[in-house]
């Protein structure tokens, strides 16, 4: 049986400041080495100043993943030398001297499958190494400490996955969950990184490090299983080793470094006293936690009668469900959900498009209400939506500018219908004997009016004129 376990690193990108100082947690827009201070640079004499908000957010993640949460948490030093690590130790958490990390064991359901969480810990991200130079011999390594000290949550699972598909489903659930908690934006470059361990029946465990995104994580796992299976089929032993993910070539490569032999000399970080997270604090955090994806989904189905599949898609995406929450009324909820999932999701399918979209909840509400009152046809609504996303103009302006309003004038519509009837004698005959085929004629009217004919009125008039 194939066994896959994951170690996922998620930055808490939504926090204002770093884990131990007041530099920005979102370091991405800074020139190299400008988002730094004596603390995150580990200058002599500086001390870490724990960001309480980070502890709260990490605890929320643990609670959302159904993990146990201890009464008191502690921080440890992980000692190792690396140029991107200002102090030559990392402040992290550890569970070997009792459960003192933000999260202990937990379970999360991926479809019908139980995935066990081993632990969740809060730690600081190191700086970033940038390699430049034309050849291996000429390589220069640059260090940018802007990232050093960014709050990071490490989520470790048991080896409960059996194939890349389960991994992908888990990652989808996890990234939706993190986004819904408003702790992290998984789409930001480098916000999500992972290590994986993979073993197939009869082989040793192989660790894959340095996977830079969820997308690549699935690919890496897939590659590694295939690689191991092909070795196995040729009776070549699979050795226990650490491999690195090469994100340019999309393959895993054996790392010659002896990383697994490192002795981290873990010990308690004396500069940060134990942090109590008592029942009172947990209750408070629970009350501040955004509604879970599951509860949202159920509410959408039971309160508004939104179909399960639509509710599923809508609830798992924070951006769209926030839009829905702001735009809907009890009456138009189904329509709003429909517009978001069938039209909007296609229009704003990337991060850039979402960010540049000019659409406001009030726009959505206006569109849904107009469809329901018959002011605008669905087709035209889609065109209007496209314009609004681009320009942010009011719906009423767009309707008049682009002449998208429904043709609901009876005499005007009757004229159009008359001409269709004369153009399609065969279809008219058919409709007389088989009333269901009348829809073909409705379609023709729609074609001629570019979708603007009021569908109900068209049908009534057609029926009247054919008889």
């Amino acid at each position, binding site marked *: 049986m194939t066994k896959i376990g994951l170690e996922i690193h998620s930055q808490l990108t939504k926090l204002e400041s770093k884990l131990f100082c007041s530099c920005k947690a979102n370091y991405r827009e800074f020139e190299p080495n400008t988002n730094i201070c*004596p603390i995150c640079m*580990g*200058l*002599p*004499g*500086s*001390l*870490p*100043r*724990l960001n309480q908000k980070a502890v709260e957010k990490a605890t929320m993640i643990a609670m959302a993943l159904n993990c146990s949460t201890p009464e008191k948490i502690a921080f440890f*030093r992980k*000692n190792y*030398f690396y*140029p991107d690590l*200002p*102090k*030559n*130790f990392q402040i992290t958490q550890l569970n070997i001297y009792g459960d003192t990390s933000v999260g202990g064991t937990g379970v999360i359901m991926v479809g019908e499958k139980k995935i066990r969480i081993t632990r969740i810990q809060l730690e600081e991200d190191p700086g970033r190494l940038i390699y430049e130079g034309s050849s291996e011999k000429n390589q220069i390594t640059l260090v940018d400490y802007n990232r050093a000290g960014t709050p990071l949550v490490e989520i470790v699972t048991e080896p409960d996955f059996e194939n890349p598909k389960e991994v992908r489903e888990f990652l989808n659930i996890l990234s939706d969950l993190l986004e819904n908690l408003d702790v992290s934006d998984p789409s930001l470059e480098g916000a999500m990184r992972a290590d994986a361990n993979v073993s197939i029946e009869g082989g040793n465990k192989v660790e894959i490090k340095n996977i830079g995104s969820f997308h690549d994580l699935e690919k890496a796992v897939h590659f590694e299983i295939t690689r191991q299976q092909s070795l196995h089929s040729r009776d070549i032993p699979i050795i226990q080793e650490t491999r690195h993910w090469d994100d340019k070539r999309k393959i895993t490569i054996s790392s010659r470094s002896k990383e697994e032999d490192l*002795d981290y*000399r*873990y*010990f*308690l970080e*004396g*500069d*940060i*006293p134990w942090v109590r997270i008592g029942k009172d604090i947990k209750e408070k955090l629970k009350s501040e936690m955004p509604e879970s994806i599951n509860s949202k989904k159920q509410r959408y189905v039971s309160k508004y009668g939104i179909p399960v599949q639509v509710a599923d898609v809508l609830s798992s995406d924070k951006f769209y469900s926030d839009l829905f929450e702001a735009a809907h009324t009890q009456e138009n909820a189904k329509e709003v959900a429909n517009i978001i999932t069938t039209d909007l999701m296609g229009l704003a399918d990337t991060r850039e498009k979402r960010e540049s979209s000019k659409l406001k909840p009030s726009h959505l509400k206006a569109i849904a209400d107009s469809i329901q009152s018959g002011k605008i046809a669905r087709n035209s609504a889609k065109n209007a939506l496209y314009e609004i996303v681009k320009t942010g103009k009011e719906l009423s302006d767009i309707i008049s500018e682009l002449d998208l309003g429904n043709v609901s004038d009876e005499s005007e519509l009757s004229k159009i219908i008359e001409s269709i009837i004369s153009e399609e004698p065969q279809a008219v005959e058919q409709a007389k004997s088989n009333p269901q085929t009348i829809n073909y004629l409705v379609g023709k009217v729609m074609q001629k009016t570019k979708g603007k004919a009021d569908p109900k009125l068209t049908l009534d008039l057609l029926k009247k004129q054919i008889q």
Partner: protein
Amino acid sequence: MNIKISALQFTRDVKSGNISAEDFVAKTMEQIQKIDGNLHAFLSLNDKAVDQAREIDKKIKSGEKIGQCFGMPISIKDNICIKDTKTTCASKMLENFIAPYDATVITKLKQQDAIFVGKVNLDEFAMGLSTEFSAYGPSKNPWNTDYVPGGSSGGSAVSVRAFECVASLGSDTGGSVRNPASFCSTVGYKPTYGLISRYGLISYANSIEQIGPLTRTVEDAAFMLNLIAGLDSNDNTTIDDNNMDYLKDIDSGIEGKKIGIIKEMIGEGIDPSVLSATKDAISKLEGLGATCEEISLDMVKYSVAAYYIITATEAGSNLARYDNLRYGYDFSVEGYEFNSYIEKARKKLGPEVTRRMILGGFVPSAGHAGKYFLKALKVKSKLTRQINDAFKKFDLLISPTVPILPFKIGEKINDPVALFLIDINTVTANLTGKPAISIPYAISNGLPIGIQLVANSMNDKLLLQAAHALEKTVKLPEVPV
């Protein structure tokens, strides 16, 4: 002008207009010029000190609001950061490190119009008890310059005793304030862990060390504590003392107090003159209305071993950043081949620091932690339990600060174990976080002896009251400088 006055006397005299801050500071700088070539307390001097004092005099004259220090000249151990000032830790590794920020204690003292006359000597990174491990040469004991001044805050003790400043800040990891205070005959006080912010103190063993004042009188120590104690958002380990006034009621005396005599600290290896001074102090305390009784803390015999294992472990981590890449590097425009450069890393650290870094890499490592580091932590928690039990019965504990008299420069430098054992009476307060103070008590063959009092956590006020009461019974000859 007399510069041999206490800190409190100085502030009273300047406030009343008896003396000017400028004259006093100028006189102090003269004293440094005159004698420091011989004593070597200072690693660097503040050449603007007199100008700063003049500014303070101006402020006083014009009736501006003035801080409680009134331009008092203070020396600072060279492991505490002062902005835009070299902070070397007496190491070649930080020879050119100019701190870009002020330690919290420095910020607070600046707000009170203190003047920093200079940075003073220590054992490299505060590891040692004689200043002989300073990369810039040892300081000399002002009572007899053939002898060590104690350490690691040796420069602080020398500068206070030899009137090169009025008060000093040192740091105490295992006795580094109290040991030189005892050897040089000054007051040396290590407060409860967390009472003074460590922000800006370059860490050696961060879980047990504290900044502490070295002063001429116990009252001065209480005065300094008033200025620098309290909660600091930059140091998560600080505790709130509710702005306690440690000077108020310092004359309360010790009548009715129960004092425990720590048996393990007056036994084997103690110098007879130190023992008789201790006995004398005990009878003086009884004369003041206290009751004294022996108590055994048997974990004390493991305390030095535990202390060196814990401090080495933390030092190995705290000093890991000094890797010759970020600090202490030679700069060559051609650059270096990485591996050959790494080989040279840490060559700039001296022998004692190197020894402790190697020990610190070993004792907490996988396969050895159980035998050493984890066992040391057990000793620490057992010792804490024992001393907490003792404080259920006693208000204070007493012992000599150091079991021996100051030794000669060079006498013990090649015997690290013998040096380690000298810490036996001081490390307990650090391992347990308790406040402890050393006060000058006697002179034997021209060399000082200090007496140590220890109180329970956050009983610093009681500790200072008791030390003040005992201090008043002492009359010592003047230092021959």
